[in-house]
C-alpha cells in the first residue's frame, strides 16, 4: 500500500486509535480503582505517555520486527477491535436497542468498516477528519457541566496507599492502548519532519488534556460513592444537563461516540491490513474479508456483561507487553544485529 501522511494526519490517526475504544469507560474504572487519587495518577500516566512517545520517536528506525512479532501485533489489534466492537454492542443494547439482535447491528458496523477498507488508503487516512467537529462538540458539552462541579472532591488525596496508586496507574494505562501504531505509521510520515520537540509535545499535551478533562469532570460531578452505579459516567453526566431545544444530550453523544469508535475500528483494521501487506503479497481482498468476518462473528459472543469483563480483564497486561515490552525487545534485538 502506497501512501504518505502529513504530521497532522499522523497525529490525528494516533489520537483516534488511542481514544476510540476507551474514552467513555475508563474514567469510571480509574475512579473505582484509584479513588480520589485518580487525577494525580493520571498526571503520572500523562508524563509517562510523553516519555514513551519520545522513546518511540528516537528508536523508531530500529523497529524492524520479524514475522512472529508482526503476528503478535496483528492478533493484539484484532483483540482490541473485538473488544471495542463488543463494547459498542453492549452499550447500544443497554441504552437503546435491547431487543435488536446484536449481530444485525454489528453487520452494519462491520459493513461500513469493510467498505472503508476496500477503498484507497487515501480515503482511510482522511477519515478521522469527520471526528474533528465531534471533538469540539465533546469539549463544548463538557464546559456546560462546569457550574455543577464540586471542586472539593479533588481532595483528600491518599497517596500513601501505594497499592491504590499502583492499581490506578495500571488501570490508566488503557488510555495508551493504541500507541504502538506510532511505530508502524511513523515511517509513512513525509520525511524531513522533525517530530522531537514541539510536535510530540503538543500532541502529548492535547492527548493529556482530552483524557484529563473528561476524568476531572466525572470525578467532580459524581460523588465517589455513586461512581460504581454509573458505568458510563460521561453519558450520565450529559443526561443530567438541561438544554432548551432538546432533551437527552447523552443520546447524541452516544452516537458521536459510536461513530468515533467505528472509525477507530476502521483504522485498526487498516493497520492490520497494512502490517499484513508488508509481509504477504497478493490476496489483500480476501484477507480484508477474513478479518471482517472475524469482527462480525466474534463480538456478539462477548457482548454480555460477564464475557465483556472477561475480555477486558487482560487488556492492561496485554497492552503493557505489546506497547512497552515488545518494542524494547525488538529495539534491543536490532541493536545487537547492527553492532
Amino acid at each position, binding site marked *: 500500500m502506497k501512501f504518505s501522511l502529513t504530521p497532522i494526519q499522523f497525529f490525528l490517526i494516533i489520537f483516534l486509535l488511542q481514544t476510540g475504544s476507551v474514552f467513555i469507560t475508563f474514567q469510571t474504572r480509574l475512579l473505582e480503582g484509584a479513588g480520589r487519587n485518580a487525577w494525580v495518577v493520571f498526571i503520572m500516566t500523562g508524563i509517562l505517555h510523553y516519555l514513551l512517545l519520545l522513546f518511540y520517536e528516537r528508536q523508531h528506525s530500529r523497529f524492524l520486527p520479524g514475522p512472529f512479532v508482526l503476528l503478535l501485533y496483528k492478533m493484539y489489534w484484532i483483540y482490541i477491535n473485538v473488544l471495542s466492537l463488543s463494547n459498542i454492542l453492549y452499550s447500544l443494547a443497554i441504552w437503546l436497542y435491547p*431487543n*435488536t439482535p446484536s449481530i444485525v447491528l454489528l453487520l452494519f458496523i462491520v459493513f461500513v468498516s469493510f467498505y472503508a477498507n476496500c477503498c484507497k488508503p487515501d480515503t482511510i487516512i482522511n477519515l478521522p477528519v469527520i471526528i474533528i467537529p465531534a471533538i469540539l462538540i465533546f469539549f463544548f458539552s463538557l464546559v456546560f457541566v462546569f457550574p455543577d462541579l464540586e471542586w472539593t472532591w*479533588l*481532595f*483528600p488525596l491518599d497517596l500513601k496507599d501505594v497499592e491504590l496508586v499502583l492499581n490506578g496507574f495500571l488501570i490508566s494505562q488503557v488510555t495508551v492502548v493504541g500507541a504502538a501504531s506510532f511505530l508502524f505509521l511513523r515511517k509513512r510520515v513525509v520525511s524531513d519532519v522533525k517530530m522531537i520537540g514541539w510536535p510530540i509535545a503538543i500532541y502529548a499535551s492535547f492527548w493529556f488534556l482530552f483524557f484529563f478533562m473528561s476524568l476531572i469532570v466525572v470525578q467532580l460531578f459524581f*460523588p465517589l*460513592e455513586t461512581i460504581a452505579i454509573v458505568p458510563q459516567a460521561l453519558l450520565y453526566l450529559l443526561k*443530567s*444537563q438541561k438544554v432548551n431545544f432538546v*432533551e437527552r444530550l447523552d443520546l447524541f453523544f452516544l452516537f458521536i461516540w459510536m461513530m468515533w469508535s467505528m472509525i477507530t475500528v476502521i483504522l485498526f483494521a487498516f493497520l492490520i491490513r497494512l502490517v499484513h501487506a508488508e509481509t504477504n503479497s497478493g490476496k489483500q481482498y480476501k484477507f480484508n474479508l477474513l478479518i471482517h468476518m472475524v469482527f462480525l462473528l466474534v463480538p456478539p459472543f462477548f457482548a454480555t456483561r460477564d464475557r465483556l469483563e472477561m475480555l477486558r480483564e487482560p487488556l492492561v497486561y496485554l497492552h503493557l507487553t505489546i506497547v512497552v515490552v515488545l518494542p524494547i525487545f525488538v529495539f534491543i534485538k536490532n541493536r545487537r544485529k547492527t553492532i
Partner: protein
Amino acid sequence: MRIQKGIIIVILTLFLSGCWDETQYKDLTIVPLIGIEGEEGDITAMFAFPTFQNGQIEYSSSQGKGISTRAARSDANLQTMEALDMAHLEVILMSADLAKTDFAPSLDMFFRTPRNRITSYMAIVEGDMATYFNPPGKMKSEVSYFYPELLRTVVLYSYGANFTLQDAMKTMFDPAIDLALPYLQINEETGIPKVVGSALFSKQRYTGITLSSSESISSVIMANKINKYARITFEWEAKQTQITVNVMRVKKNWKIGTDTISASYDLDISVEEYAPHNLHEKKKREEVTAFLETSFKEHFDAVIKKSQEAESDILGFGRKVRAFHSGLWNQGDWQKTYADLPIEVEVNVRMKLTNIAE
C-alpha cells in the same frame, strides 16, 4: 453477482424481521407526574397523564400497587390504555411516610433506567397521596401541569435548589452533605397543594423536621445556590415597617477550625419594598443595612439550629471538612459531628440597588 444477491437477501431479511426496538410514540402514554407512597416492599404508585382523544387533550390518572416501584408501574400498566412511559417524567412526589423509611431503592429504578429522565423534580408531600392527585380545592389547571410549574417557580424564586432526581441521588449518597426537598401540604383554606418549606434529610431518610419557606430561602442563600430571585421580607418592629430585599449575589467564606466553623457571608442586595422612603439619606441606608445584617444573621442562625437539630448538613460543610480537615472528618459519623459543632455565622450586607424609585 454474488455480492448483489447477498445484499438483496440482507435487505429482505431486514424488511421481514422488522424493527426490533421500535417504540412508536403514538403507542406510549407520557407520564409527567408520579406519586409514590407506602413502604419498601409495598409500594403504591400513582400516575397522572394526558390522554389524547379526537384531537383533544384530557387528563387522567391511574394507580398501581406492587412490591417495588417497577412492579407498581407494571400493575398500573394493566389499567391504562397505552403503556406508561417515564421518559418525560417531570415531577416525582413522595409521601413523607415513605421518605422516613429507607426509600432509596424505590427511586433507583428511575435513576438508572437509561430511557428515563433524571432531571425531574422531587418533592415530599404530607399525608395521603391521593389528595394531591385530586385536591379537595378547585384547581384551575390539571395536576400533571400544576406540579411541574409550581416546582419551577420554587427554583426560580430560590425556595429550594438542587432537588432534581439526579441531584437528590447524588446528594443522598454523599455522606458529607444532606438533602433538602420541597415540602408540600394541602392548604386548608383553599384546598390546593402549597409549598410550605423544605423537608430535611439526614443520610438517606427524612427526619420529620421541615424548614419554613423563609428559612428555605435563607438556606439556599447560605448554600450560594440562588436562582434569579431570592426575595425575603423582614418585619422591622422598631420602625413599625416591613422591608423586602432581593439577594443578588452571595459570597460565602467558611472557615473551619479544629472543632468550630465560622461562616461569613457577604450579601449584595437590592431593596424591593420599603415604605418609609428615606433611603436617599446615607444615614438611613446605614441603619437599614445594620438592621438587615442582624435579621439575616437571625434567619441564618435559625437554619443552622434546625439543621443541627435534624442532624442534616444541608449546606455541605462536610464536603469542605472532608477535603481539607481530615481530623474533624474522622471524628466519626459526620452527621453526628455536625449536630454538635458550634457554627458561627457572620453577615455583611451591601445595599447595591434600591429598586424602588427614590
